[in-house]
């Protein structure tokens, strides 16, 4: 497969044939390294490509810091003095010696910029130079670089590195890189390439399928069945992991639905109140997080990573207080009149949205993800993003805490009593107005907690609540009113169903199909999955 990238790599690798061991100091008569690095300051993208190739060809360790900095975007040109510097934090280093450099008072720094192609070239060049480094993690990165940019000319280099390698992880990576290179090289014998196929399938990780598929192009006849069977095996594995991945996506979507809906399930269950302002409680929780992070950023920047954790009790208290206020102020007067409650809470949601819009403006606000919530990890064949993972854990914690409150505390006992039979509970001496206020406060507080979690997934805008109110009602109706387990099962089922439909029907149609399915389900079981039973509940 001829492409520009292959040509560039061949050009880059040619010098390696002459200098297999990069520990040998390169003949610097060929390229004046300091001059080349200086030339990077004013070079165009095409010229930079040439300079990178020249520097890589020297094989000298002295160019590694400069090339690493260039690829990472840390190489700067001081326009006034014309020198090229490496940035590390707030200090600037000389690119060759690594010594800190004093900047003049009138230093005008501009970043030396690269594009994707240059970044690939630099990665390939660095891989070649750091393969024999003393640092095992650098050797590992180099081996992975060789895996990503296989080049037959590097095989002798890899052979040498494998013979000298002591670290098991790095050895495995180097062997995988070597197998990938051999497989892709038309010059190698068929037996060697056939032996390489299983190594590639097992050692190349997520890219194994890509590599095997591209190796299929132009592979000789004898090799094709081996590659095909390896691909078939990998694809079967991938199908299974793909289904599990969908389940994981469904669980994480379901956990978001759970957080949003569980507060509604409680208020709806205990009081029979349709609270259309529930979405706004979620939105207020998100805005509380934004304010908390703003305060922390200005006054306690060291705590930024914990801002979400600090925001949790704040959001709970704020939205809980507002919930109690709503109940005492509006809902209390409208008991037994569901339509009026619906209208009143709908109007309240509009008021809350506009209030937030007037205070914070209509545009979105940004909450920074803490470092422990960014990125992802591989769990066997699954790719799990940290943000989603912590949200699932959080949703389960909230759920079990609520279960605890409802089943083990006096307040919970009173709530359950009022749900089952309000008049009897009142006759037994339970202060139903107090229970109502506390229930509404609790439901709204949980919604606030959901808002904190949602800052990591969705945009924070005054309309945030509108996106979740429909989903919350869907979950509550499907799962059964007043029953926490119903909400849990309902939310997770809906999430998983949505995610399994999405690859086939697309995001838009998937949502529609879920709604249609719920409507059909309600025809059979009007009270939802886990309906409450009892004489008083029927009313």
């Amino acid at each position, binding site marked *: 497969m001829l492409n520009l990238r292959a040509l560039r790599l061949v050009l880059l690798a040619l010098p390696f044939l002459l200098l297999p061991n990069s520990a040998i100091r390169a003949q610097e008569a060929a390229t004046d390294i300091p001059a080349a690095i200086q030339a990077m300051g004013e070079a165009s993208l095409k010229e930079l490509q040439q300079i990178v190739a020249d520097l890589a060809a020297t094989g000298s360790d002295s160019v590694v810091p400069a090339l690493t900095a260039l690829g990472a975007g840390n190489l700067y040109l001081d326009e006034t003095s014309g020198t090229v510097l490496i940035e590390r934090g707030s200090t600037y280093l000389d690119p060759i010696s690594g010594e800190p450099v004093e900047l003049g008072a009138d230093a005008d720094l501009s970043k030396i910029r690269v594009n*994707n192609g240059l970044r*690939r070239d630099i990665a390939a060049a660095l891989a070649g130079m750091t393969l024999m480094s003393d640092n095992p993690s650098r050797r590992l990165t180099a081996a992975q670089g060789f895996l990503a940019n296989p080049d037959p000319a590097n095989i002798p280099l890899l052979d040498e590195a494998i013979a000298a390698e002591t670290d098991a992880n790095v050895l495995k990576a180097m062997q995988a890189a070597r197998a990938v290179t051999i497989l892709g090289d038309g010059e190698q014998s068929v037996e060697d390439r056939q032996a390489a196929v299983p190594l590639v399938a097992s050692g190349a990780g997520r890219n194994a399928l890509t590599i095997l598929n591209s190796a299929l192009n132009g592979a000789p006849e004898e090799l094709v069945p081996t590659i095909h069977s390896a691909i078939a095996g990998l694809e079967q594995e991938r199908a299974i992991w793909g289904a599990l991945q969908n389940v994981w996506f469904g669980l994480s*979507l379901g956990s978001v639905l759970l957080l949003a809906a569980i507060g509604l399930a409680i208020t709806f269950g205990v009081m029979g109140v349709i609270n259309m302002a529930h979405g706004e409680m979620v939105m207020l929780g998100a805005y509380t997080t934004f304010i908390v992070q703003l305060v922390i950023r200005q006054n306690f920047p060291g705590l930024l990573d914990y801002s979400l954790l600090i925001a949790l009790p704040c959001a709970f208290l704020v939205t809980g207080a507002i919930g109690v206020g709503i109940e005492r102020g509006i809902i209390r007067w409208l008991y037994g009149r569901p339509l009026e409650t619906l209208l009143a809470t709908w109007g309240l949601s509009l008021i809350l949205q506009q209030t937030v819009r007037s205070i914070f403006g*209509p545009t*979105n606000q940004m909450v920074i993800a803490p470092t422990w919530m960014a990125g992802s990890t591989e769990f066997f064949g699954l790719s799990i993003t940290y943000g989603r993972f912590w949200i699932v854990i959080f949703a389960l914690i909230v759920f079990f805490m609520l279960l605890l409150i409802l089943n083990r505390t006096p307040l919970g006992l009173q709530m359950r009593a009022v749900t089952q039979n309000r008049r009897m509970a009142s006759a037994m001496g339970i202060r139903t107005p107090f229970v109502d206020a506390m229930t509404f406060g609790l439901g709204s507080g949980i919604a606030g907690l959901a808002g904190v979690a949602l800052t990591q997934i969705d945009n924070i805008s005054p309309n945030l609540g509108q996106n979740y109110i429909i989903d919350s009602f869907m979950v509550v109706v499907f799962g059964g009113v007043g029953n926490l387990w119903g909400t849990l099962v309902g939310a997770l089922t809906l999430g998983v169903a949505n995610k399994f439909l999405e690859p086939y029907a697309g995001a838009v149609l998937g949502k529609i199909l879920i709604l249609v399915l719920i409507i059909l389900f309600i025809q059979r079981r009007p009270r939802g999955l886990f309906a409450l039973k009892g004489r008083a509940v029927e009313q």
Partner: protein
Amino acid sequence: MKNFSAKSALLAAALAGSVSLAAVPVMAQDDTIKVGILHSLSGTMAISETTLKDTMLFLIEQQNAKGGVMGKMLEPVVVDIASDWPLAAELARQLIEVDEVDAVFGCWTSVCRKSVLPVFEELNSLLFYPVQYEGEESQRNVFYTGASPNQQAIPAVDYLMNEEGVERWVLAGTDYVYPQTTNKILEQYLLDKGVAAEDIMINYTPFGHSDWQTIVSDIKAFGSAGKKTAVVSTINGDANVPFYRELGNQGVMAEDIPVVAFSVGEEELSGFDTTPLVGHLAAWNYFMSVDTPENEEFIAAWQDFIGSEDRVTNDPMEAHMIGFNLWVAAVEKAGTTDADAVIDAIVGLETPNLTGGVAKMLPNHHITKPVLIGEIQDDGQFFVVWETEDLVPGDAWSDYLPESKMLEADWTAPINCGNYNTETETCGSAM
């Protein structure tokens, strides 16, 4: 019944009061020329459109400082279409009939433009539309100062094909007319270039979509077939934020699967930590990072007006500037703000753009623009990695679709038609 009539009278009074409040400050009709600003200041598109409203206010203030137009001061009339497309049509009608504006600068999404088109045709007013769009349209009352597909989408695909060697394509867009038409054009273009149908994956998501897990995972899977894969994104509005966040979280690096976006600019990236996005691309006709004296002057004046050095400039802002300058020039040339006179006067007029070239209003109501491809940097700015040597004239009817390649738009005499069929030499039915 007494109660009923008193209540309804109160209601009517309240309604009337609120409608009149929605109209703008009273000033004597003859002293000012009113300019309508029709953008979303709330809802999912507010992230993109709020700054365009501010740009128009800035341009009007600058023009007034130069003495206004024909000696009269300009007066802005701002309405919020709230990302609600039927509302946009109502408010457009209100601007033209009630506020009596002489020109309207507005809209971002194509669905907004399509919704307000009938209003501008019926009331014969002028709309200056500043955003890149899907083409397949040329209306007499509309001036398209944003890019048509041959000024943005096609050059971007060419760049990926030639410079990055992309062979597999994911066309991801929001579910409305602009991404769907653009993807139709791009799919045909790719098929014509020899890309196999199974190497093209198309998907659509609703406005404001926030759960991108499955789609990003599908993109990764699609990209593992051994050929270089790229994503062409026509995702609009704040759905881009969770999309890019998910790309970063799932480790989709620009060196492996580059994403080129057509509706993501400096404004959408401001306030967002773009470190995981470095290397992803956007195709526009202007970037804030372009180093010309005109651009430096514009940025300095803009940041001075808005009172903040954190505010960025972007392509639709430049398009508004070009459209506004062309309108002012046309009004002064015609000697009147009358719509027909301006439409006749404006074709052929030129005004400098901010990248060192000149924007000329063509007979099809599009302008000439350069094409720039930029990579996202870690400060939310773009680094230009490729640009056209010359200005590209906007082509309203795509040459790649069989139903539109024979159509030309020409609003000058003698043709005076938006969809003139060059084969049958007749003017087709109105769009």
